[in-house]
């Protein structure tokens, strides 16, 4: 059964917005990194949908690249969070405001 492409675009936009809202409203940095991952994975979904729609492999190759880079990004992000926790003893974004003073 084929699903209409517009529905997948709609699903992608919803997932992407959930990711943005997560980054904007959550205070825990690790949850924020997870929200960024949701954004990237929603785009992956769109790539796969278009790839199937066009019967073209380019989109699926792109997904593999995005997944690899998202993993690298998460590794770097978590490393920064560890360094941050050593300095602030907190990973709450509201506590991290040394630059604002």
């Amino acid at each position, binding site marked *: 059964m084929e699903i209409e*492409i517009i529905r997948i*675009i709609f699903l*992608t936009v919803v997932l*992407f917005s959930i*990711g*943005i809202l997560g*980054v904007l409203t959550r205070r825990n*940095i690790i949850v*924020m990194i997870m929200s*960024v991952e949701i*954004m*990237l994975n*929603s*785009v992956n979904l*769109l*790539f796969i949908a*278009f790839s199937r*729609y*066009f019967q*073209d492999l*380019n*989109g699926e*190759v*792109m997904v593999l*690249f*995005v997944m690899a*880079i998202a993993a*690298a*990004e998460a590794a*770097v*992000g978590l*490393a*920064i*969070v560890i*360094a*941050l926790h*050593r*300095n*602030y003893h907190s990973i709450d974004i509201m506590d*991290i*405001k*040394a*630059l*604002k003073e």
Partner: protein
Amino acid sequence: MENIFKFQDLILSAPQMILISGALLILLLQVILPGFRKLLAFYITLISLFASLYFVTFGIPGTAFYGLLSGNPEGGTAFQGNLRLNGYIQHYSFLILLALTIILFFIKRVFAEQKLELAEVYQFLLYIGAGSIFTVSANDLMTMYIGLELSSLPFFILAAWDRGRATATEAAVKYFFLSTIGIAFMLLGIALVYGGSGSTMLSEVFPVVFAEDSFSYKLLAAGWFLIIGGFLVKIAVVPFHGWVADVYDGAPSVITAAMASIVKISAVGAVFRILQFMQPDMHMILNTGIIIFAVASMVYGNMAPLNQNNLKRVFAYSSIAHAGYIITMFMFFPESFKAISLRTEASSALYFYILTYALTTILAFATIAYLENGEERGLTFDHLKGLSKKNPFAAFLLSVSALSFAGIPPLAGFFGKLFLLKVLLSAGYYYLAVVMIVTSLVGVYFYIRIVFYAYWDFEDENATSGMLPPFRGIFAWSAAIVTAVLVLGLGFYSESIFNFARVASELIQ
């Protein structure tokens, strides 16, 4: 199955390949040589950068890889059309490598003094260089995305390099989130462009013709705007500027120099290239946005630092203002004025401006890096009091960069602004030119204030003595002198550089 890998491809992507092999060599030697020293990593980096610079400038004789000086802006494509090589891209590659080499000299000295020097720093610099060149030379949105990530991931790490300092880690986490969100939006844009046209290759997307109100046209338009928006986050124009002051302030100053120059060079080069592939009627919508963003950046970037006391923040805000000047050149594309010559003028004016901007920024932030020397929070104006007596060389460098930013005539920054104004006026954007002149006149106030504090005799000038060390290190000295001479002297050769860049700008696609 036909052989899809050709040796020709490696030659056409020689600069990137040299940088990547240098980085991998450092990685390998660290494992197999027990007593691996940082100095060896530094020299491997230096040799890779110089080799790339040499090939970019002179080309590889007997192959299709033409250098800056050997002409032929036509170039070619490599890796099944994934990478493009032409005169325009060579110009930007040259600029990225030049900026990286200067920054390498500064980083060597500053990080050695702050006990932060590890072999990995140099490796990351090489990745940044390769990623930036990939971004500019990509002919496929997929390659562009990977190049962009390759150049941003090392910056997250380098921003937090001084990891015992709270502000550095805070800057890193802010840069991480803003950059990843910007790239996520760009990725969504790439997906929509792919959905609208069925291809991610720039040269295949461009010729597709659509009905104005078709569904694929809307997908494509949304996709292009998201991609441009993602790049504007990197260039830091006003609606996307929130991170700039904090990140530039918190990161180590030499890394700030790299962030403010290299990221912008590659993003500007890539955007101007991508804009040439956009369908003409989308430009009309985009131009309105660009005018609004440009005016907002000019006003905000020149007003915000007026009551700012932290030097790094002053330069961070001024980089927003300069981003505003830069993006005015994004309004010119082939069909807009029926004359390709204006697009060419805009391209070479943009190149000269970004050249002077990058050199001046590196000079400013590198000088600040020397002066602060591990202070917890950055320099303020009070620290500058009596600088001309304690450290005349640093006072001179800081004044040169401030005056060049302000656009005082014999310096390079003035000629950069002059070219931009010339293009804007000949295209008929009079009000934009007026806004540009007025806002940069406002900006002169805080640039002159820097020079004033550095050279004026104050009563209480010994209040902060002992904090400012003299300029040290042969590499840093030579890099500082070369950069200062370039900032002072480029203006006199501005016309020939402008004409030289114009030849390459004939063919951007």
